[in-house]
């Protein structure tokens, strides 16, 4: 039995079924990310004065990732346009670019995550706090080495944009006997990092999911072009709508997490 309305529009909606389906799905996605954005707002306005981090993320890296995702959006729409103009070769080229850009985005995001997981806040027994990236943390050694700085007030760790002059990082050796608490900048560290990892992690999963679908359409799924090009073009359009939504979410995530 054939699935109805995969190509021709359904009389009552004026659309082929998959298009209605993807928009319903995207509507649910708006609510999913909306709930997380509202959590972000509550956490931010509920943070004590001076304790909401600023300048913790690398803006040039985030900007590059934004440009990567925007470029992947244009290659996606160009791939669909190539199908519409019956230029299968161009479709292949554009979607290959989309896949490469998706992988680039995930690689850059992984680099950022790695950077955060290598960052430690170490509370010493004398009350000082050592903050920086780990250089050596051999469990057999009686000390750890970080590249960072000492602060006496935790507040100094939060607003990195306001602090002047720019701090200098130096290699600090800390005996283990002086360490009271040692914690990575993971999602458990504070509410900012919790919502940062939740939002960007969920977004990255969407990027990976979208890339898998686009990869299927570029590879084995592209055989449909020979038997049913119109249906194939609709599939490309549907995957493209999802991809643009992923781009759209990042357009808000970038300023909210990196810039403001």
């Amino acid at each position, binding site marked *: 039995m054939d699935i109805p309305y995969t190509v021709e529009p359904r009389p009552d909606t*004026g659309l082929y079924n998959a298009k209605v389906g993807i928009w319903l799905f995207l509507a649910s996605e708006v609510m999913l990310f909306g709930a997380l954005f509202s959590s972000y707002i509550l956490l931010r306005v509920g943070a004590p004065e001076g304790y909401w981090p600023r300048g913790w993320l690398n*803006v040039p890296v985030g900007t590059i990732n934004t440009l990567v995702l925007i470029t992947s959006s244009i290659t996606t729409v160009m791939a669909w*346009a190539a199908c519409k103009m019956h230029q299968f070769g161009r479709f292949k080229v554009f979607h290959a670019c989309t896949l490469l850009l998706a992988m680039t985005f995930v690689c850059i995001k992984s680099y950022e995550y790695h950077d955060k997981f290598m960052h430690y806040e170490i509370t010493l027994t004398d009350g000082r706090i050592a903050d920086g990236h780990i250089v050596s943390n051999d469990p057999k050694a009686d000390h750890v080495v970080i590249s960072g700085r000492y602060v006496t007030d935790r507040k100094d760790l939060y607003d990195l944009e306001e602090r002047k002059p720019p701090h200098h990082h130096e290699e600090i050796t800390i005996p283990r006997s002086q360490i009271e608490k040692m914690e990575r900048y993971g999602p458990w560290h504070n509410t900012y990092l919790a919502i940062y990892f939740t939002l960007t992690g969920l977004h990255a999963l969407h990027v990976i999911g979208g890339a898998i679908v686009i990869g299927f359409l570029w590879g084995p799924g592209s055989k449909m072009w020979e038997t049913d090009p119109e249906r194939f073009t609709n599939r490309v359009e549907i995957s493209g709508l999802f991809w643009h939504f992923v781009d759209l979410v990042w357009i808000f995530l970038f300023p909210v997490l990196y810039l403001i």
Partner: protein
Amino acid sequence: MTAEAHEDFTHHVRRYLYVFYALLFGTLVTVGASYIPFGHHSVNIAVALVIACGKAFLVAGFFMHLISERKMIYGLLAFTACFFLGLMFLTLSAYGDFPRMTVTH
């Protein structure tokens, strides 16, 4: 595809490119504006969100073709917008609404 339809599509492709350039420009403006001290930090937040809304309009309107979509999709999105705004309203109304005896630093 007829030559006329092909020409029409080429026109669309050109439009996609203009939108792409606008998005790139918008990204750079967003980053640049974040370094400008507008006096109060809330102004910086408002500027960043306004630019983000403009970019979102370009992506949704042109790349996702919402600018010329069927009524049914508009209806569906209107429902979504209502629920989204309701969610944000709940967020705002929850702000400052603490149970008694809550420690607020």
